[in-house]
């Protein structure tokens, strides 16, 4: 059934073209979304600095505690 559907739907060589168009279209959507889409700058800064935020953690060992 699927074979017939595929044979009817498109020649096999069309699939790469479909893939390419879909990719380029989606890529452009992502780029436009990222560049032109509104995003709270504070939120971006917060996310970007997230790895640095855990520097305030407390490490304790049998020898003592380090802030």
């Amino acid at each position, binding site marked *: 059934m699927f074979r017939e559907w595929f044979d009817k739907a*498109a020649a*096999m060589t069309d699939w790469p073209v479909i893939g390419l168009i879909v990719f380029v279209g989606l890529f452009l959507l992502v780029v436009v979304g*990222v560049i032109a889409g509104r995003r709270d700058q504070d939120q971006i800064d917060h996310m970007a600095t997230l*790895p640095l935020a*855990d520097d305030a953690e407390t490490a304790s060992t049998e020898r003592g505690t380090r802030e």
Partner: protein
Amino acid sequence: MQATAPVTKKVVYNDEIVRAFSIASIVFGIVGMLVGVIVATQLSFWQANLGLQWTSFGRLRPLHTNAAIFAFVGNMIFAGVYYSLQRLLKARLASDFLGWFHFWVYQLIIVGAAVTLPLGLTQSKEYAELIWPIDLAVVVVWVAFAVNFFWTIARRNERNLYVAIWFYISTIVTIAVLYIVNNLSIPTSLTHSYPIFTGVQDALVQWWYGHNAVAFFLTTPILGIMYYYLPKAAGRPVYSYRLSIVHFWSLIFIYIWAGPHHLLYTALPDWAQTLGMIFSVMLWAPSWGGMLNGLLTLRGAWDKLRTDPVIKFFIVAVTFYGMSTFEGPLLSVKSVSALGHYTDWIIGHVHGGALGWNGFMAFGMFYWLVPRLWNTELASKRLAEVHFWVGTLGILLYVVAMWISGVSQGLYLRALDAEGFLKYPDFIEALIASRFLYQMRLVGGLAYFLSSVLGAGVLFATMAKGKKATVSVDVTVLKPTGLTFRQIMTGAPVLYSTALVVLTCILLATGTLGSAFAVAGFAVVTIAAALSIGVEKTRKSWHDMVEAHPLSFTVLALLAILIGGLVEIIPLTMDRTKEQDLAAQADSLWTEGGQYAFIQMPYSPLELAGRDIYVREGCYVCHSQMVRPFRHETLRYGEYSRAAEFIYDTPFQWGSKRTGPDLHRVGGRYANLWHYLHMRDPRSTSPGSNMPTYMHLETATADLAALPGKMGVLVKIGVPYDEADIAGAEETALSQGRLIADDLAQQDVELAPDSELAALIAYLQRLGRGPQPTGMEPAADAVAAVEVQ
């Protein structure tokens, strides 16, 4: 209305599991690199195979690759993920039990691989060699890891997921898909199975997996680790968070398509090859975007490069990432692949990534992590610096040797004289010419290994002088975000993307009217998208919402990686049924006009037994079975290989490297005696060869009793053995073995007809041509001995 005060709580991280994975990674890293040094020695000095079947190159090389990828880098990934995940989510690992289950079963899997691979228990698919019971254990472990990972996300105290976690998510979902599909097989015993795919389909699925094992096991989790640990080490946030969004989505979407670049100029359909090449070239953009995002994170802190060994390792690692991701697409261009494929250039490319990117990211991370996990200072910065410089020198020696060797081999083997014939017809000359470069590679690999031993020493000394730290942090408990799956999946970007996919399908799948409709649809969607940007400005960012909704994020990542796989694999699976139809007419085609029609017929029982021995010994590691359509290849090896010839080959044995010559047309090229002597002592027939000896095959008895069971499984896969074939398999195999033994006896060589060597000779003599006489079935034999009318 009165606002409620934020609730805070203390979170104690589970770093014990991180410590365990760190130690495992360092230990197995040394083991994996040691095996690498051993196999590099074997390529320079064949005596290093020790004349033992368990230590031959064909069996140790998969052990080296599996140890390096899954034991060293795998454990490093889990250490890096478990440490950063808890901190980025401000939550303890959801289940300590699942964490330890993950750790111990994973180490058992590694030990299982270390035992089974030297024993020759293998599926022979590169980086997927492990036998089916171990594969099942891997699936169980991966599920445990995924459950613990997503459960921890569900308990998080940070609203949005940081970019590192996006890469971890893509790793988890993609590896699950790849690993399961590529390892689909039917067992014939506890230690053996046949893949359900055959020939071209098997090759495409394998390299879809193989390429994306590099992409989603050796790249995306390491990029996640880069996005967390590099800012930590530099003390600066990532250069561009916006760029990381583009980097992530474009990388995971493109990467999955690029697998066919491992099969350029093979019997894979041309459209799939072209698709693989195009997407590989497109990978340049996101890869370099990610590399630059990493390097520029160090803006304003480049002085640390002089003083901090962690930064040194990270920066050189990211630089090697850039070099490898430049070289990979370059090698994927068909004309470059024509030269570089099957040569040492690929080995150099792989090791630039493995030693430079993966190895240095691992050591950079451990140099940063271990002092914090043991609450102390690094035992010796000076020795870490020595590790860095000796390791870097080792990488350079290694890759430069392989570049020169690879390009030389490519040029040497394709050289034609003025009359258009091979200038260097003897393959072995190219190998001999590479000998010095193989020794140079050995020196480079040895330097890298020794520097890693030194690094391991520094890390273990650091652990010894410190004390295990328990880390806690006060966090504000996260309130429910209120976002729903439906809310996100009906967001404008999803709707536009769906419209784009549908319209593209309509454009290409229908006639003029449909195309006009699709073009009009594209225009409407474009205008709507442009208008929606204005609307978007007044609302919350959609991607911001996605980052806060892990389920939606995971579903979208899964869709992004599935599209490429489906577009490549489904059409080819459809194609397979056509090949089978063609193969069903094999008898008539075979005898048509008395011409050789290259239509594959199933292997005889003895040939099948010989094929399994070929697989067990890892012959595919050094020998391809794929003659590419180039004059220099057809002159050297014979007619180029065609897809239909592999219809009953499972697992496929196309190989990816030619340390020895291609074997697809070796059948009938040499006498049985030549093969007998060659397997006993390769240098007796091919002076200068570095192939191990296979004397054990002469005395070992082939497992002919297993043949009916194996053939029964192959029938399920689509190989047309009938009941009589299966019932008489053992007898037919013995009969064919006697023909070989009798032939050898005429030349004063005694070989048991049921020996493994007889079976292997039968298989090799069958390669590239039709059925051979078995001495049992006149009807079948008649096909091979067809009389030219």
